[in-house]
């Protein structure tokens, strides 16, 4: 069963441990809109993510989970506090933190091959690492589509290209912002297994934002449950269920279902008979 009560105070103690890849200290992020109104996207966040771990951030929309991911990527900077990757403060985007967006955002003027090779080319290492491109095309099962243009691909294929494009840089951490959100249920389940396979094979640390409780339990080592107003991590849950052959958890096991209802309870959805949680009102 999963442990409960693994609250932030407890995690703070572990901040200095050596296998932490990402440490976030007292992070807060405020947005000021055009009318001068302030929105607090994140307040006093303390998180550490271990190397090689698979972490899911889950929570209702607008709870700041994507903002947190963008902070790690360096696409925005925190209002207070700092995030470190391997004890180095993150200030701007870098290839060692790969990012996969919900929309594949492939460059439409480049072929599948050139999209994947893009990262290597801009870092001027394409010649030495040409083999990597083929390797990742194989890894995501897109052999034979090298010369296709993005508009010729299905949604699932495009997302695979986007995944390969981020992975070819050998990032220390891969940040996934609802990467499977736009896919149909079956493609989605296949892609979940595929991401897990890549995770196992490459040992890349994965931080994934999702709004799907099942997906979070199926895939991750730890689930960060976030709530809205004030935006914070409500609870960190260790998923102590053994991984199956496909590396995912058995979706119909008792442990799975118990953990699921536990998370739903934290998110205030459980037992409300479809009633809208307070933060949507």
């Amino acid at each position, binding site marked *: 069963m999963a442990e409960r009560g693994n609250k932030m105070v407890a995690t703070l103690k572990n901040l200095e441990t050596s296998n932490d890849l990402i440490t976030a200290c007292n992070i807060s992020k405020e947005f000021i809109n055009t009318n001068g109104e302030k929105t607090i996207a994140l307040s006093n966040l303390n998180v550490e993510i271990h190397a090689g771990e698979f972490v899911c951030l889950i929570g209702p929309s607008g709870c700041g989970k994507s903002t947190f991911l963008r902070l790690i*990527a*360096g*696409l925005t900077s925190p209002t207070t506090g700092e995030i470190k990757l391997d004890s180095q403060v993150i200030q*701007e*985007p*870098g*290839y060692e*933190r*790969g*990012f996969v*967006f919900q*929309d594949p*955002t492939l*460059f*439409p*003027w*480049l*072929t599948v091959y050139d999209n994947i090779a*893009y*990262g290597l080319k*801009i*870092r001027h290492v394409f010649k030495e690492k040409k083999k990597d491109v083929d390797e990742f095309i194989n890894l995501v099962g897109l052999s034979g589509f090298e010369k296709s*243009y*993005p*508009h010729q691909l299905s949604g699932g294929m495009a997302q695979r290209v986007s995944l390969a*494009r*981020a992975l070819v*840089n050998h990032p220390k951490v891969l*940040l996934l912002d609802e990467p499977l959100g736009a896919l149909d249920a079956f493609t989605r389940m296949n892609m979940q297994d595929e991401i897990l396979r890549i995770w196992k094979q490459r040992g890349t640390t994965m931080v994934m934002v999702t709004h799907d409780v099942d997906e979070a339990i199926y895939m991750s080592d730890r689930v960060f449950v976030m709530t809205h107003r004030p935006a914070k991590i409500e609870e960190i849950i260790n998923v102590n269920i053994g991984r199956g052959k496909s590396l995912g958890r058995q979706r119909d096991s008792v442990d799975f279902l118990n953990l699921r209802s536990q998370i739903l309870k934290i998110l205030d959805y459980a037992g409300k008979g479809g009633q809208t949680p307070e933060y949507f009102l």
Partner: protein
Amino acid sequence: MLKLEVNKIEPQFNFRATIPTIAITVALLVDILIPNNANAKYRNLTNLRSVLIVGLVLTVILFFVTLFNKSYREKYSHKSWFVGAMITFFNVLNIVTVKFMLLPQIYFPSLNRVLNVFIQDRKLLLTCMGSSFSLFLEGLVVGVIAGIITGIMVGWSKNWNYWVNPLIRMLGPIPSSTWIPLALVIFPTPRWAAIFLIAFGVWFQLTILTSSGIQSVSKSYFEVSSTLGATDSQNLFRIAIPDSLPSIFLGFFNATCSSFVALIAAEMIGSKSGIGWYINWQKEMVAYPNVYAGLLIIAAFCYIFITIQFKIRDKLLGWQKGVIKW
């Protein structure tokens, strides 16, 4: 009359492939069977008949090609109605001018006389074409380079946008020809002034469309590119510029069209050669056959130039979904 289904493409023979041949045969028969009006000037010229005979041979050859080449058959058949209509237009023109003289022949000379200009004035016309073309090309190249650079700067840099954008809006819409007096004073030779006039129109079009293309590049492309390790200048050259290529090409197309206009205006100043100059000169001499010959050359040149341009565009922008075919 003809009751064949024209839309059905048959495996070997397509009726539509015969339309140009039929139209040209009719035109040839009209020219041979109806005598030229007794009052027509130069009524013994047979230039049109020679052209029609060459055309007839050509369409017959092309028709035989369509019998064996499927892709060419489809292409040729598709265009056949248009080609037939064009031939018929000239056929009607032939009838109303030299055959029945329904139009005043000083303004509407016979096609024979227009074609005759190409033979008599061929040396002068060739020199004019050469000088027009080099003027046009120089103006276009200068304008395109300046326009793309300004467009990129204005689209990419906030400072440039602040200082240059209002100037572009003020200066750009002023028609090229109104710059003539100023251009003649500023530039040492009339030729330089003429190049400036052409380049100016091109520069404006390209600046506007390049900068708007760069400004409308989706922010998410830059974000993806940055997380893959790109620097600012790589974002510009590898993301912003490729993504705004469709817009830049549209600007280039608009620019070519406006530079044809500017070319004629530019040749009014101080030059002694060029198609624009030739047309103006012949107009003053009331030599309408020569004016029409000049117009035909300009039309053919525009057509060829724009066709080449779209061929290049389709090649470069093949990645676009549902790219508009011209």
